[in-house]
């Protein structure tokens, strides 16, 4: 029997930008990620076992401990849990839901970056068209949106901290673009 295959991060070989104390960019740790699609009732049923109850308010994330559920659409949530046996967790979650739904493992489809620092919003606004002021995009807000020509999920986890999740093949583009947009903040 062959040895177990090791993981290779989509960020391997990429240099993450940083601007002194104004911006740090780190890779979010490996995690279980699911796409949950179904009715709010299905989401509520899942919440009962998952921890955070997925929000029915648009564009809001709920979290409990190290688990989170991000509202992406009226029948779609993005679930995050610490790395582990994704299939087993999925089975136990699905078992708790009577409603028709889909719980699909996308742990490897998506990757995440954490942008932190007083210039994080500005660097994001270098290519994201949303209003990232605290009033328009408060802590706890989550949504799919764009970073230039790439689709991202943007989640504000703190006043100056954002988590950006996206499909792994875009890693080079997004890291490159963040670096380009961060450059002027060094001055």
């Amino acid at each position, binding site marked *: 029997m062959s040895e177990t295959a090791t993981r290779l991060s989509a960020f391997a070989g990429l240099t993450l930008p940083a601007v002194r104390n104004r911006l740090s960019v780190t890779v979010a740790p490996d995690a279980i990620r699911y796409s949950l699609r179904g009715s709010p009732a299905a989401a509520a049923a899942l919440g009962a076992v998952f921890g955070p109850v997925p929000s029915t308010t*648009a564009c809001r994330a709920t979290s409990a401990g190290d688990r989170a559920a991000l509202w*992406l659409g009226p029948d779609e949530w993005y679930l995050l849990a610490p790395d582990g046996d994704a299939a087993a967790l999925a089975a136990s979650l699905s078992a708790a839901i009577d409603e028709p739904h889909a719980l699909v493992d996308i742990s490897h489809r998506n990757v995440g970056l954490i942008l932190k620092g007083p210039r994080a919003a500005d660097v994001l606004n270098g290519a994201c*068209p949303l209003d990232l002021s605290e009033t328009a995009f408060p802590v706890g807000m989550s949504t799919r949106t764009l970073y230039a020509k790439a689709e991202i999920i943007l989640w504000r986890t703190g006043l100056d901290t954002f988590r950006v999740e996206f499909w792994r093949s875009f890693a080079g583009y997004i890291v490159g673009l963040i670096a380009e947009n961060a450059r002027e903040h060094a001055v």
Partner: protein
Amino acid sequence: MLLVTCPYCGPRPEIEFRQAGEAHIARPAITCSDDEWADFLYMRDNHKGYMRERWRHVAGCGRFFNVVRHTVTDKFVASYKVGEEKPAIPAEAAAGPRVEIVR
């Protein structure tokens, strides 16, 4: 860049959306005539004035929804979900003179 109001997410920039053509064009039954099928596939009001059209918040909540928008001013006047009652089309304001003159 237009500001499109998604009935789920609120006002968001146009680039997050795809316009998906005239709204409320029902897919006829398979037994329909060639004319009816052509109407469904290709014929469009292409109205100058208020138009009901579909958009999809593709880089957002992913939903298709309907709007009423004016195709001359490009202004949106209503957004509504699939299956919701159609909001009324506002009366067309009389076009004033291009240049008003004061003395």
